[in-house]
């Protein structure tokens, strides 16, 4: 799809190709919401933990939340310049800004249209958008994985790029790990014997990365640390997000992963064809399928964990695969007998719309309708499926099936990307979040301390929540009991009032969780059509001050 259109026969003879316009437009689609997110995204999910860890690293406090990835180390450095999350996010954004360039370089493999569609899909993937701009320890992962893929599939790369890539992968989060495993597995399976000197350089660079990470990039000895391994493993033991990987997949990324699976199957079906066959997948396509397979395996195994990376690891190759096959499907659509297909498609949409209206109504009232209504919806649903099945079996019109699939998938993708990117209130992702209320509380505590100096005691169960909102305030005492000289005590809700202290009125919370609307199909539809209809659950705390009397 390399259609070049002249933008007018101007006197200067300047021509702008449609592809160039598309690259700029889609690049902007990817970058603009992400740039906005730098300021608008609430601090939440793993970003919250990792910012806390980085902050403590700047203070020399030993904290498990500091995972010594390269980004974490740079993040800590930037936090020592400015205590807000903005600079680390800008750094993450800069890395993400190279994504369109990487995709541009994949044109020889994916094709112009395939690369553009991959860019579009990546732009619309909410978890990937979040990971690419939030200051989590894995913030470089999307960019590193994509550039690593470029390096693997583009022939003639200079040798010195390989050690750099090895260093990048060794000091990144777990997302590039899936690609590294797939690439390693395929290379080993093919019996490739790389140049020993290059191998030594790659191993040396990776080891250097591990050594630097083990020393926390200067923030202190962390024990032997392989950041991608640590970040791969930790979500299995800890909860970084309110929703599970499966929840986030169902809310935001299912069209992309579904598209990736279909595309991977289509590629794999041609796997056995002889290499000389024009339709047979090339080595890079096999690598892409293998990458996606490893990533999906990880995503499935981690489906009940609470982290972002396993999903993004799958959506990234899914976007490339889906982009590739969407372009092929669009090409095939030129051969469709449209006069028949349009009619059937139109009927299918109409029938589906009739059913959808009823289901949306049910969702609004959170109850399924009467028996007759259910029967009507069922009939309409069956009719839609029957029409689409007919189209699927009718070979000349088959490619048009892509239209309803894309239309159906576009809704959650577009709404998800923009709502997450612009930090919409009550969006289930990212969650948990550090509420504004927590910063207000830190200001209140500072005010109290001016009148009643003394230690601020925080209950041990709130240790993790308090770091980020209370940075730049006053040293805290983390304790399980309130010492008698405490000026302020922050305790979990329901704790006994400490002797000689009085509560500060207010609905205080250091963390809030956004409900994941994945408890049923109606709940999901309701949320999809009314985004703000999610419950926000603050975890209340009680604040006590020394009674002046």
């Amino acid at each position: 799809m390399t259609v070049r259109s002249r933008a007018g026969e101007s006197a200067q003879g300047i021509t702008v190709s449609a592809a160039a316009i598309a690259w700029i437009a889609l690049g902007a689609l990817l970058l603009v919401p992400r740039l906005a997110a730098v300021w608008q995204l609430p601090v939440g999910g793993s970003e919250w933990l990792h910012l806390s860890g980085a902050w403590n690293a700047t203070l020399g406090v030993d904290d498990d939340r500091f995972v010594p990835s390269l980004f974490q180390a740079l993040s800590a450095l930037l936090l020592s310049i400015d205590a807000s999350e903005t600079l680390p996010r800008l750094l993450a954004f800069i890395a993400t800004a190279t994504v369109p360039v990487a995709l541009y370089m994949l044109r020889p493999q994916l094709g112009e249209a395939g690369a553009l569609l991959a860019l579009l899909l990546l732009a619309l993937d909410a978890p990937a958008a979040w990971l690419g701009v939030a200051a989590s320890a894995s913030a470089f992962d999307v960019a590193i994985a994509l550039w690593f893929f470029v390096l693997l599939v583009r022939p003639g790369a200079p040798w010195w790029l390989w050690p750099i890539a090895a260093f990048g992968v060794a000091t990144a989060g777990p997302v590039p790990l899936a690609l590294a495993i797939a690439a390693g597995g395929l290379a080993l399976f093919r019996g490739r014997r790389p140049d020993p000197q290059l191998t030594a350089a790659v191993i040396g660079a990776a080891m250097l990365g591990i050594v630097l990470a083990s020393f926390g990039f200067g923030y202190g000895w962390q024990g032997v640390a392989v950041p991608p391994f640590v970040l791969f493993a930790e979500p299995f033991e800890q909860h970084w997000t309110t929703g599970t990987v499966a929840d986030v997949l169902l809310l935001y990324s299912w069209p992309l992963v579904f598209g990736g699976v279909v595309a991977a199957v289509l590629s794999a079906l041609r796997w056995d064809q002889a290499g000389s066959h024009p339709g047979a997948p090339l080595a890079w396509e096999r690598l892409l399928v293998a990458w996606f397979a490893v990533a999906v395996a990880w995503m499935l195994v981690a489906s009940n964990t609470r982290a972002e990376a396993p999903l993004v690891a799958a959506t990234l190759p899914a976007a490339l695969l889906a982009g590739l096959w969407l372009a092929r499907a669009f090409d095939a659509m030129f051969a469709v007998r449209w006069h028949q297909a349009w009619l059937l498609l139109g009927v299918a949409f109409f029938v589906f719309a009739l059913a959808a209206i009823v289901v949306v109504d049910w969702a609004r009232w959170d109850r399924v309708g009467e028996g007759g209504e259910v029967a009507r919806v069922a009939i309409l649903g069956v009719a839609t499926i029957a029409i689409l099945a007919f189209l699927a079996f009718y070979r000349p019109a088959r490619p048009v099936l892509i239209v309803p699939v894309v239309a159906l998938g576009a809704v959650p993708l577009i709404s998800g990307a923009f709502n997450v990117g612009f930090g919409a209130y009550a969006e289930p992702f990212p969650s948990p979040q550090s509420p504004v209320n927590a910063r207000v509380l830190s200001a209140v505590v500072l005010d109290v301390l001016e009148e009643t100096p003394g230690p601020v005691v925080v209950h041990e169960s709130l240790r993790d929540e308090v770091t980020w909102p209370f940075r730049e305030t006053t040293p805290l005492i983390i304790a399980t009991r309130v010492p008698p000289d405490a000026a302020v005590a922050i305790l979990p809700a329901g704790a006994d009032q400490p002797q000689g202290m009085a509560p500060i009125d207010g609905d205080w919370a250091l963390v809030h969780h956004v409900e994941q609307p994945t408890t049923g199909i109606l709940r999901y539809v309701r949320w999809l059509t009314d985004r703000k209809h999610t419950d926000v659950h603050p975890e209340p705390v009680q604040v006590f001050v020394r009674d002046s009397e």
Partner: protein
Amino acid sequence: MAPVLVFWSFALLLALLALPIAARIFRRFPDAGAGLAFPLGLMLCGYGYFLLRTIEVLPHGRGGFLLAFAGFALISAAVAATDRRFIATLRRSSTGIIASFALFTVAFFAYAAFRSYNSGISGTEQPMDFLFLNAMLASPSYPPADPWLAGHNVSYYYFGYLQSALLTGASGVEPSIGYNLGLATVFASAAAAVASVCAALVRWVVRRERQRATLTAAALGVALLLFSGSLLGVFEFAAAHERYNTGLYEAFGVESLLPCEPGQAEACYAGPTNPRTQSWYPDEFWFWWRASRVIPDTITEFPAFSFILGDLHPHVMALPGVILAVAIALALWRGRSALDWRALRRGPLIGLLLALVFGGLAFQNTWDVLTFSAVLAGAVLARNWRVFPPGQAMLASAAFLALPAAAAVVLYSPWWLDFGTAAGGLHAYTGRGTIPAHAFLQFGTLILAALLVVFWAARRAPAHAAVTPALYAIWVPIIAFAMWALLAAFRGDWSTAAQERTAGGWTTLLLLGLALWALCTTAIVLHLRRSAGAPVAFLAAVGVLLLYGAELLLIRDVFFGSVPRLNTMFKLSYQAWVLLSIAGAVAFVAAISEPRRRNLAAHLAAAPVALLLVLSFAYVAGAVPNRTNGFGNETNIDGLAFLARNDPDEYALTRWIASNTPPGAVIIEASGRRWQAGDDGPTLQPGGVEYTDAGRIASRTGRLAPIGWYFHQVQWRGDNTANREEFSRRQDLVDGVYLAGSQEEALAAIAELGAGYVVMGRLEQARYPSQHRTDFDAFLDVAFEAGDLRVYRVPRVEEVPVS
């Protein structure tokens, strides 16, 4: 059901990943080694995990286990890539591969179903097994910390637990489920592995009707290894249905099954009679236990007993691994090239594999390493004997084995450094010996089945061809006997040894010696004639040698003063069971596959053996319904479901600790000693803590207790004054926490133990009298509460800078 499916998927995945390696070693096996891929995958991936955890490359938790899988997948891909015949091997052996995976699957689900009727992890040494499984899963660093001795690493052979933990951790199932599914995996792996080895041997031995013979041998191998038992089972059935023949019972030394005579209280049956059982099977509680104690003062456990009991013990978990070791030895024997140092240079991977597998045997069940290394050495020597003159063959074999042996020590050095053995050297056995009737009940079926190889061989060599081999072979029993005599004389036990052994003991020794001689002679004869039956006779000979050896020699351990050969007989007879099952199955099938008119003797000999084989299954036929109450028990695969049902508060407390305390946390729980209230303060009551609920929290969560089962620590770390003092000191400190006179005393003891939590659960309430109990509410934080049970947290204060 979902955890079972997930666990099974991971077991299958691991076997698939190991298949390229297995196919390379066992190319000539009918299933290309697919049946052996299960233990191979577990051993190799388990070792990789152990090593990478030890050097801190892999993180703790499920992610670490999954990364080990991913790393193993890369190795697998590399091996597949360098094997040009891999795809062809897969195609040729596809039927065998599918059959192996199917057998594993059927055996796994069948055993899991059986176990679900009796899933509770309680009684016998199951708490200890669960402890080690949890230690592998929860330890924040490797080598893993010992949860029954906070501050120390495990000093035990724990590779089997690590392998179970690998599947449990990677699949993400609860440890209490992983325990039972780990047993199912061992059962199924052993079935697949023994079927693979038996099928290969029969295919090499039997020329006609190969397909049928292969299947029969595989099935019989599985049956003999896992379903046959002591012939005591027949007497148990008869006694349960009150069919008494006093003379016969006495002749077989099982008169203890007869009802007690008036005035008799011991060594007789004292339960209800008329009827003695309410069912078609013996319903006496745990009747099947007796079959493991037939020979007095020993344990004569066998695999069927182990799987019915359900202890996840090292010798049980080692079963698939030792069959793998045997298979490797056989593959080398059947190889085509000489095995010298050049072979290692040509294929260094085989050296590495030998180091990992045979070194892993020590790590898995230390007793196995000597026996199965000897099997390997014998196989290598046999291979080289075909190529070199005897002296050179020995040198070449030594050169071939030396490097892998050294590598095995180095590769497993992180474990060796922590491992303290209680073994105290080789001694002569100076007891009464085993009477022939008991030896027959326990091992008769297998020995006689294995001896069929002699009948099978008889047709393949003229009698005079056996004369010289017989003259060589006689030295095997003679040397063993001479060692006994010399050791007895050296240690001053000669007269005792000679006098104590009864006529029955001498008779058994003589019979075993004769069987050993016959089998060694057969092995040499067959080997000289380049017959594929030689390995069968060799395995049978080693099996009988182990039983013969256990009648003569013993390894000194903590039981030396009371029941000296308890462990020696136990461990060696278990190994013999494996070897004789393989040899017996193959020999039986080989014998009956002979044309009847050509080898009538073999057929005639096989007939009574067939009858014995059938009778040997009586044990399992009775024990399985007995263990499951006629399959009437409630089913649940979770090993802690019994606790959730019987004591929900204690269960909730356990779950809370597992979920809310850090993996390396030291948690004080009852030492297990009993205290009684008294006017002058609490008084300590006599009684041990072994096999009780002492250390239950550590066992169920992998968190660290200051002290668990006292005498087990003595067994693991050596019986010396320093150890006993330290263990007693810890018991005193723990009891001091619960019975402290003041807060300060309690806090000082808690601080000395380095603990962060104190448990006040059901056992603590039972062991420490309430009037003397420390009032923890006054000075510790209540971290968890369920009913009247609590977990206390030691108060902590820590200043954290924020800017």
